[in-house]
């Protein structure tokens, strides 16, 4: 069911999941999932809400450990590695959290400067310049002395993007970057993600459920549902796979009825009301 079961260690893949099983409590989120995310491209991970897309990012970042299987990031086995190497790896990752996760007691400029101060011995003047440069890249140079509470949702997300980029990461992870955005700021974000990826030769992973928007910037699409990969490839390839996979067709077309909402189709209402079946 997974088209690419990577057995050879191809250096073209930035992230590889091999037979990953992950459960939270009694709920199984991934069962034996494998995927590979190519280096230097924008990969979009799609799927309905609650399919563990955010969990996928947490696995990649080493914040969660799978019950079984391996998670490889740039050749490093994230779930086995010692804390020091994990932190070294994270220094090369940038994460854009769902609501930005800006530090509320610091200004926008200080937020962007934070990773620089934490991990470099640069002098203040140089840090100031890097901060201005990063804020310019997301179009927020004028807001550097504002506090996160004074920003709109879209601005906060762009500020968080500037912070995530501060250390010039090799890998950018975006967690639902379009959630709750108006069409204009969504367009701005889409362009930014694509442009940053190409200009800085990044590898980008975008987790979202906005099918059309995501498809427009994706080099590769992976569709998750029900704890497994139901589609994978370039946007066109994925669209072509819908014939074979009814769940994929339902998700891509946004149908209310289909195999994906099986849990909505419960016993008849009358039964829950205690009226009993008609005999």
């Amino acid at each position, binding site marked *: 069911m997974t088209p690419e079961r990577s057995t050879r260690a191809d250096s073209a893949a930035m992230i590889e999941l091999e037979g990953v099983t992950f459960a939270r409590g009694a709920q199984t989120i991934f069962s034996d999932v494998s995927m590979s995310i190519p280096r230097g491209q924008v990969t979009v991970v799609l799927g309905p809400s609650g399919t563990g897309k955010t969990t996928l990012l947490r696995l990649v970042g080493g*914040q969660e450990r799978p019950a079984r299987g391996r998670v490889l990031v740039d050749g490093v086995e994230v779930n086995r590695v010692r804390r020091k190497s994990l*932190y070294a790896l*994270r220094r090369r990752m940038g*994460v854009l959290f769902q609501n930005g*996760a800006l*530090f509320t007691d610091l200004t926008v400029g200080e937020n962007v400067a934070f990773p620089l101060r*934490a991990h470099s011995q640069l002098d203040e003047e140089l840090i100031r310049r890097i901060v201005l440069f990063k804020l310019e890249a997301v179009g927020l140079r004028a807001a550097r002395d504002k506090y996160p509470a004074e920003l709109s949702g879209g601005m906060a997300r762009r500020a968080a993007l500037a912070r995530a980029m501060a250390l010039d990461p090799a890998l950018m992870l975006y967690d639902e970057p379009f959630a709750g955005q108006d069409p204009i700021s969504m367009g701005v974000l889409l362009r930014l993600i694509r442009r940053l990826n190409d200009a800085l030769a990044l590898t980008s992973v975008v987790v979202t459920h906005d099918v059309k928007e995501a498809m427009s910037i994706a080099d590769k699409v992976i569709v998750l549902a029900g704890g497994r990969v139901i589609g994978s490839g370039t946007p066109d390839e994925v669209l072509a796979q819908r014939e074979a996979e009814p769940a994929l067709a339902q998700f891509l077309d946004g149908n209310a009825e289909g195999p994906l909402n099986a849990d909505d189709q419960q016993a008849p209402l009358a039964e829950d009301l205690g009226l009993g079946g008609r005999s």
Partner: protein
Amino acid sequence: MTALLDAISRLGRLAIDAVAHAGSMALFALRLAVVLFPTWSRPRDVAQQVYAAGVLSLVIILVAGGFVGLVLGLQGYNILNKFNATESLGVMVALSLVRELGPVVAALLFAGRAGSAITAEIALMKTTEQLAALEMMAVDPMRRVIGPRFWGALISVPLLAAMFSMVGIIGGYLIGVVVLGVDQASFWGQIREQMDPWDDVAEGALKSLAFGAVIALISVYEGYRAEPTASGMARATTQTVVLSSLAVLGLDFVMTAFMFGA
């Protein structure tokens, strides 16, 4: 019969939850212990937290200390007057405060004023993914967020308790000597004769240091473990105040029994 069984099993579940809670807090304390001294590589972070926890609690502590001293002076005068022993008012007020009321009341007020704020702040940082963001920036939140707040509370509580006691004794002096006319010389003289720097002042300070450690641990733990929702945060702050207060009073009994008992 089933109601009884239900009640017993509910009790069992409560007991299991309590043990699990204590266990996870102990594990958390171990993780915290590892970063306690590395935290001091950024002394400014600690200073910031002493400010937030200690300096900002100063007003409530001083006002409360003054009132407690005034009340002790009044009540003590009325009781001692029955035994013709009002000249002992100073000792009574001073020893009550230094040994007992200073450390305990200051700790309870601190838990309500600053402990709950620490919990709320950490829980909010967790809810808004700021802690996760720190982790993903390869910055250890234990060291950067939890450690400084623990130290801030630990340092603040004994200092606040000392100021509470001192202001309280002055309050007792105002009521006893200035208002009720107890002899000034015997007020201070009896304190000087009966209050021991080690047995009373130092042991009182030791108590408040222990209270500070307990409140600090509970406050940061409850925040760190809070469920990342609005109601989870509310529950965590309440839990901090309740647990801290009970822990302070229980620990106070144990420490008093060891220090002054027998």
